[in-house]
């Protein structure tokens, strides 16, 4: 990176931390520290919700997904708008009426303290680990970029977030989200424009899109029903709906964002705005990846994008074998480029048989090159069994660093850092709130003063920051980051959603049956994840459906509760 890039990056990060500290000054009670005095308007809430979900992983890994696998990943988000409507209708009014600080507080009102505690603990485990991943992603960038020690980088980035989140609480988090989201959108738009402009001048934008389509990268919608395929219309509409309901309705990192609304209307509008723009935004990020893919049809891509692993194999006893594979990859590229040009010429001439023939040749070389890549990965693994062989996360980063102009690299890096900081801050903020409200205040020290609770919230933000940094140290072997985060959530989301659905929509199921149902649901999810090939989006459906059915059955088997107890629960 040039000095100008460093200046842009440093100034942006400095501004965000300073702005967070300034916005979050003078926090005297929990209402202020956890819910920003419940004074926020819907545009702030909407941007805060979006910034919480849009982590650096979204920015780094999603274009790589489109490059490697096409745009089918957009289907993961199809259930989200439906979830936004359902949550606006059912969850927002209840949370606002009860004036809760956390989503789990509501569960005690409906069930009992053990259900509240169980759900809060499940959340703390899942979100604690996920927040570690959101710190790891940009740390990875800097370590690859500068050759810094990844562990030290994790520590520096995590500490920056901890400073303004611990000091300023939710006010700092929500207000910095607005600035961060604007920087993220600006960075993404710039990256797309430059990716398109980087394609050779004799290829028009429309032709570039047609090339991407012919090479299988614009497969946005797939209506086939296959339970072992991760991204289809059906898995997105059903599994994606469950994930979104659980994430936005039961995950404190999101619930806390819209609990800050001055009225239920402000919270609802914040959610609905997200329902309108999230799917097109993800499509747009994936489209950036598709354009980077087209760019690499005309400019030779490396055989393996992870420069650190490439450097290691280059000095190993397999260096000559790897060099041979690189030669084969280059030869494949030259042939493929020629056939891609034939494809463009045939499309220009409306020569359908010619285009089909060129497409077949391109696809054949793609298959051959995939085999070359697999051989390279096998070699990397033979050289080092612990090597990180998933290079999806490096594709977009590699493009940014090699081909974007001075200054723009700094802007895109700033956008990536902002994305990471926004979701990490929301995660730490929620972890601290849940620990204080649902565990410390409820179970350990119910009679402390507001000042004590605020002080404890700050210390717990620091604790969870430390926990997340520690987990980030172990995140290097988790494959595609965006999948890792969503997979991790999918172990728990279905079960947590089952608990909330039982709370919202049943009147007779009690806390004991709900807890036991949740345990059965969680055990079923673990069975399907470890012993079957069921695509992970469906784990959410299984956890939710099994959890609900098990709770309903167990309730019938349990001894009858006193009528008063049932009425109270209802």
């Amino acid at each position: 990176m040039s000095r100008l890039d460093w200046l842009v990056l440093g100034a942006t990060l400095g501004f965000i931390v300073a702005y967070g500290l300034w916005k979050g000054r003078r926090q005297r009670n929990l209402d202020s520290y956890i819910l920003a005095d419940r004074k926020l308007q819907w545009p702030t809430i909407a941007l805060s919700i979006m910034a919480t979900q849009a982590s650096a992983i979204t920015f780094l890994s999603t274009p790589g997904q489109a490059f490697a696998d096409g745009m089918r990943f957009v289907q993961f988000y199809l259930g989200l708008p439906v979830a936004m409507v359902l949550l606006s209708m059912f969850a927002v009014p209840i949370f606002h009426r009860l004036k809760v600080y956390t989503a789990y507080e509501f569960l005690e009102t409906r069930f009992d303290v053990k259900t509240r505690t169980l759900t809060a603990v499940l959340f703390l485990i899942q979100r604690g680990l996920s927040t570690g991943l959101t710190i790891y992603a940009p740390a990875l960038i800097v370590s690859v970029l500068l050759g810094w020690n990844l562990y030290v980088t994790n520590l520096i980035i995590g500490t920056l977030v901890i400073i303004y989140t611990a000091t300023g609480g939710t006010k700092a988090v929500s207000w910095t989200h607005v600035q961060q989201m604007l920087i993220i959108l600006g960075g993404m738009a710039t990256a797309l424009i430059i990716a398109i402009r980087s394609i050779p001048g004799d290829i028009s934008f429309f032709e570039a899109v047609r090339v991407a389509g012919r090479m299988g990268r614009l497969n946005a919608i797939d209506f086939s029903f296959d339970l072992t395929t991760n991204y289809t219309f059906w898995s997105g509409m059903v599994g994606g709906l469950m994930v979104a309901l659980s994430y936005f309705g039961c995950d404190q990192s999101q619930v806390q964002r819209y609990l800050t609304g001055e009225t239920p209307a402000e919270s609802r509008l914040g959610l609905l705005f997200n329902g309108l723009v999230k799917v097109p935004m993800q499509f747009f990020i994936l489209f950036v990846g598709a354009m980077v893919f087209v760019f690499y049809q005309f400019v030779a891509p490396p055989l393996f994008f992870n420069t650190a692993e490439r450097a290691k194999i280059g000095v190993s006893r397999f260096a000559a074998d790897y060099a041979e594979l690189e030669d084969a990859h280059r030869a494949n590229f030259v042939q493929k480029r020629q056939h891609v040009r034939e494809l463009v010429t045939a499309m220009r001439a409306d020569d359908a048989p010619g285009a089909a023939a060129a497409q077949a040749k391109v696809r054949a070389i793609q298959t051959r090159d995939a085999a070359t890549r697999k051989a390279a990965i096998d070699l990397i693994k033979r050289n080092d069994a612990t090597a990180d062989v998933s290079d999806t996360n490096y594709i977009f980063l590699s493009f940014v660093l090699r081909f974007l102009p001075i200054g723009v690299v700094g802007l895109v890096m700033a956008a990536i850092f902002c994305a990471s900081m926004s979701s990490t801050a929301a995660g730490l903020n929620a972890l601290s709130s849940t620990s204080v409200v649902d565990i410390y205040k409820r179970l350990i020290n119910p009679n402390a003063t507001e000042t004590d609770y605020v002080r404890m919230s700050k210390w717990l933000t620091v604790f969870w920051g430390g926990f997340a940094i520690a987990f980030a140290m172990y995140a290097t072997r988790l494959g595609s980051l965006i999948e890792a985060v969503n997979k991790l959530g999918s172990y728990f989301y279905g079960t947590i959603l089952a608990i909330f659905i039982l709370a919202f929509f049943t009147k007779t199921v009690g806390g004991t049956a709900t807890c036991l149902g949740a345990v059965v649901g969680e055990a079923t999810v673990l069975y399907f994840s470890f012993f079957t090939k069921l695509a992970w989006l469906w784990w959410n459906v299984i956890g939710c459906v099994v959890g609900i059915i098990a709770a309903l059955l167990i309730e019938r088997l349990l001894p009858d509760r006193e009528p008063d107890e049932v009425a109270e629960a209802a």
Partner: protein
Amino acid sequence: MTDDRPPIGRSWSTLYIAVLVNLAVLIIIFYAFTRYFR
């Protein structure tokens, strides 16, 4: 309750329908996009 009226739009039902119609239109556009460019 005054809060039942959204600050923008005629009613909450209208806004909910707008979000769902937007989703349906996006799915149709994405499907057409997939078919046209494959």
